[in-house]
């Protein structure tokens, strides 16, 4: 549709165009008077207005405005009744039919949901042909990606009276096309199998891969061809190329692929020559590049080590970390003589850039300073790529923001004049707070728990009324409050608070208090409840801690100090004799108190606290309970470590070790805080009083390590003084969304605990292996299941029977087993 003016043909170029006064405006093409009025209103034209004709600005603007309503397929404006300087304008419109509904036929419900999100058609809106055509294309592309290359979409229009239309998209996916055969021609150095192996997505259909048909995806296929060439380039075939490839249908609905390669010759590196480099000497750059003179030329390594890939920073990375953000290296590879290549690296270092403004957007809850203090990109500092990477890692660790918003990195805008790079972090807040009311059925019946976990609390705003949404937040403090009870004989109250940056420096300070009370005997770990009358068990514990980030050896180190106080009051009586017996099994009779001092040193470079993929965590701690007066005494040493290695995009491997030793200061026996191994955090939901549980997959609570018998003849863990534990996990990042994160894994663990250093036999371990999954749901928190096989027999605490190797199921809520945590 164009602005047409019957009077003159195309607009006159030079002559001044006459202006007219609009006398009246009419609308043709719609019946409804209101719509007519609406069209006029939308056009922005009004009677009495002066317009230039033909093709004045007001007219073209009016047409555009009416188009923008998206209700008319055709719009044009004409003039009639021209008399003198007055003119009447006629707006001709052709309304689009309104879409009453559209239907997708011939597809699955799941696909329908996904497709409806993409299709640009709206009920009640005009059904424009372009949108219908796009919808068809979207459907086709959708199925193309799923391997249905021959999907056919036809549209059936049912027009009703008053210009309405109903659309039915009939989708015929046809047969799924699978790749039946991939053949290579012209290959000598590598056989077909090697080359097929180089392809990642494009695979031949094989009967043993029953879980999936090998679909054909065009984009992935193109990439796979590059991978084939990469395989050659990796092995010195500098000028290998794909001469021709064809993808064709084979008779039985499958696809055949023929790829013809020309391998060329295998080349060796004769010389690597750096030009233009002043910041780094040739030696350093060559080392980073990794091409050695005299060896087979590796074209893939050249690319990767030049521009960096994965964690490897590459030659450019060296420059990027020293402020040369515009550095560039152009490699020129020349065939020298015979099978030799000379490589010239032309380096353009450019100038040093500094960080300019460092901005933060998107933080609707978390205050600027909580974010800014984590950033390594500091205004005025030299530009550094690793500073950006480190900043992102830190923000990720806060757990306040969606990974998607962080993983893209900050926006960087460069000021060429000032040689500055402004950095802007755009975060998206996700709720990391947890509020839970849960009921769990366990060893003392149904326990109700009301818990709050605020990971981004604000104590500063505690007394500001409008900051309560639902609680004051945004200062990055952690607060958790928990109340637990089974209604009759068990209660627990706990509160903890952490300020991660005390006094503006990275010095977490915090504390917690907790009170627990039991009035009936329960299975307390070391003694069965049988034969004990009611009594009272109370525990009060409190602690304060300070941790401090160190700058040396690097800033991932932290030292921690903790002062703790424990009070146990444990009184019960034997049901038959009436003698004093402890109500809670793992703690001696009467009142016991201890004051503990703990020092720890740790280093943490893990990328994500809940689901680590890369990085490591090591911590060493010493705890001393001094023998003052009646206080309980011991000294205790722990060394924990975990290491995570990413494997590709979606997998990672983690190993952990866990060593512990507890000894006596005075020579008296150690009665508290010894190690019992086995079970899950869930098994200890009633409290870990007086013991130090070490969780272990594949074995029930407390069965590993020295056991003894109670006076009643029941088996109970004695508590080990030496403990070793090893874990390994191979994890898959299966689901990563706001609603659910899931990491299925396979594991292999081993652990044991021993009476004393004399009894310590490090090779004597209880092993287990199996599969499991760790889930994170926003409201519930962490859930972990596993199905594990115990390789070693153990004695059941309940029955005293020997349990042979076999499979068992375990479950934990709220806290994972930890790859090396406890």
């Amino acid at each position, binding site marked *: 549709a164009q602005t047409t003016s019957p009077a003159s043909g195309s607009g006159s170029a030079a002559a001044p165009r006459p202006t007219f006064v609009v006398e009246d405006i009419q609308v043709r093409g719609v019946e*409804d008077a*209101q*719509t*007519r*009025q*609406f*069209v*006029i*209103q*939308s056009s*922005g034209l*009004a009677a009495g207005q002066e317009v230039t004709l033909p093709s004045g600005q007001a007219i073209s603007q009016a047409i555009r*405005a009416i188009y*923008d309503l998206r209700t008319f397929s055709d719009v044009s404006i004409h003039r009639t009744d021209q008399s003198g300087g007055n003119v009447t304008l006629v707006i001709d419109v052709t309304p689009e039919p309104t879409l009453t509904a559209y239907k997708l036929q011939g597809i699955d419900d799941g696909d329908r949901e996904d497709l409806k999100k993409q299709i640009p058609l709206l009920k009640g809106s005009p059904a424009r042909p372009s949108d219908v055509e796009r919808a068809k294309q979207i459907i086709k592309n959708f199925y193309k990606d799923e391997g249905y290359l021959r999907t056919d979409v036809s549209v059936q229009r049912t027009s009703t009276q008053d210009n309405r239309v109903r659309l039915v998209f009939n989708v015929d996916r046809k047969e799924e096309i699978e790749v039946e055969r991939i053949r290579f021609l012209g290959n000598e150095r590598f056989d077909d199998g090697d080359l097929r192996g180089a392809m990642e997505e494009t695979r031949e259909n094989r009967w043993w891969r029953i879980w999936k048909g090998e679909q054909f995806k065009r984009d992935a296929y193109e990439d796979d061809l590059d991978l084939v060439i990469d395989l050659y380039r990796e092995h010195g075939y500098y000028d290998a190329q794909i001469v021709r490839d064809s993808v064709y249908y084979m008779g039985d609905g499958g696809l055949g692929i023929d790829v013809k390669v020309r391998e060329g010759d295998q080349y060796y590196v004769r010389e690597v020559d750096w030009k233009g480099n002043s910041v780094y000497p040739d030696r350093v750059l060559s080392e980073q590049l990794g091409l050695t003179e005299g060896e087979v030329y590796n074209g893939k390594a050249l690319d990767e080590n030049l521009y960096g890939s994965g964690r490897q920073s590459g030659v450019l990375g060296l420059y990027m970390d020293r402020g040369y953000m515009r550095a560039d290296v152009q490699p020129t590879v020349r065939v020298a003589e015979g099978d030799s290549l000379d490589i010239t690296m032309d380096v353009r270092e450019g100038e040093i850039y500094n960080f*300019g*403004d*460092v901005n*933060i*957007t*998107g*933080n*609707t*809850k*978390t*205050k*600027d*300073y909580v974010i*800014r*203090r984590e950033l390594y990109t*500091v*205004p*005025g*500092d030299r530009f550094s790529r690793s500073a950006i990477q480190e900043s992102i890692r830190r923000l990720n660790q806060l757990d306040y923001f969606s990974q998607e918003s962080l993983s893209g990195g900050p926006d960087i805008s460069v000021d060429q004049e000032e040689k500055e790079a402004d950095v802007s972090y755009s975060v998206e807040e996700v709720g990391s707070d947890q509020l839970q009311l849960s009921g769990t059925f366990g060893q003392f019946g149904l326990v109700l728990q009301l818990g709050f976990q605020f990971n981004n609390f604000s104590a500063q705003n505690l007394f500001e009324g409008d900051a309560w949404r639902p609680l004051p937040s*945004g200062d990055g403090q952690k607060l958790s409050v928990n109340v637990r009870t089974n209604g009759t004989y068990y209660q627990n109250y706990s509160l903890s608070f952490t300020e991660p940056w005390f006094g*503006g*420096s990275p010095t977490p300070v915090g504390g917690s208090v907790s009170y627990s009370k039991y009035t009936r005997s329960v299975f307390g770990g070391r003694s069965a409840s049988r034969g004990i009358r009611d009594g009272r068990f109370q525990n009060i514990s409190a602690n304060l801690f300070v941790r401090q980030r160190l700058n040396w050896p690097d800033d991932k180190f932290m030292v921690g100090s903790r002062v703790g106080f424990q009070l146990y009051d444990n009184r019960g009586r034997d049901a038959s004799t009436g003698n004093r017996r402890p109500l809670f099994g793992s703690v001696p009779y009467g009142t016991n108190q201890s004051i503990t001092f703990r020092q720890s040193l740790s280093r943490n470079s893990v990328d994500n606290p809940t689901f680590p993929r890369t990085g490591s965590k090591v911590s060493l701690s010493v705890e001393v309970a001094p023998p003052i007066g009646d206080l309980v005494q011991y000294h205790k040493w722990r060394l924990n470590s975990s290491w995570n290695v990413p494997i590709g995009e979606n997998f990672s491997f983690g190993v952990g070790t866990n060593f512990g030793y507890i000894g006596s200061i005075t020579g008296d026996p150690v009665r508290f805080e010894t190690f019992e191994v086995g079970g899950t955090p869930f098994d200890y939901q009633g409290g870990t009083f007086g013991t130090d549980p070490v969780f272990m997959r594949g074995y029930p609570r407390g069965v590993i390590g020295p056991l003894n018998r109670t006076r009643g003849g029941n088996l109970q863990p004695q508590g080990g003084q030496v403990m070793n534990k090893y874990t390994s996990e191979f994890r898959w990042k299966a689901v990563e969304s706001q609603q659910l994160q899931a990491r299925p894994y396979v594991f292999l663990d081993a652990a044991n605990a021993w009476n004393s250093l004399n009894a310590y036999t490090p090779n004597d371990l209880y092993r287990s292996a199996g599969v499991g999954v760790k889930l994170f749901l926003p409201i519930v928190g962490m859930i972990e299941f596993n199905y594990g096989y115990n390789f070693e027999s153990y004695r059941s605490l309940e029955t005293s029977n020997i349990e042979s190797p076999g499979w068992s199921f375990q479950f934990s809520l709220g806290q994972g087993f930890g790859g090396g945590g406890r």
Partner: protein
Amino acid sequence: CSGGTELTYSGPEEAYKKGVAEMEEGDHQQAIRFFRAVFEYGRGNEWAPDARFKLAMAQRGLNKHLVAANEFQRFTQLYRNDELLPRAEFERANSYYLRSPSYRLDQSDSEQAISLFRLFIDRHPNHELVPEAEEKINELRAKLARKKYEAGRLYEQRDMWQAATTVYERAFDQYPDTPWADDALLGAVRTYIRYADRSVESKQAERYQKAIENYNRLTQLFPESTLLGRAEDLYSEAREKLDRAQAQQGEQSLAQEDASSGSN
């Protein structure tokens, strides 16, 4: 939602008037239902523009500022000749103004409000609401200035002197018209001195000099500032240290020890 009762009205006029009455009663939810009813008689009917405008105001009454902003925007698109148009443009900007949170949080809404208020002023320079728009722009810019200034404070508190000087100077450069401009300059004076104190000798004089330059800007541009007293003390300190540093550099003659340009 205040009841799912059927609305009764005989036409757009009655629906509109009932909506206005509900609004006066303070029942925004019900008012919105009546205003929506007006559009059932077409978006071009006589009462539709006013209903659209009031609908947006009712959304504001429910603290739904983003919804309100969208309604005002639709008004400006649909009724470009209506006399309420400038008002709607102003109120659209105002909706973002009302959403603008504390300076410690994301300021996208403030920036949006500023640009919409400016657009309003450009289009309707003689409108009675222009002074109010200008006042609000100033208020929002002061907030942005404070945000930047506090970033400087953070770096200063953590002894990151170079970053602090950079950010304070930028806070002044970008927001010289706000109440935080003199604070930013004073911050620059203060942190340049600390920065120089901890710099290698060869860089000290230059940085004390910078402190003095910022002091001069402060006294010239803000002769009324309440911060001048504190600035005075810092100035004498900088002056003294500059003299000493220059004297020292003189003594060191031409032995150019400029190996490391870094500091801190």
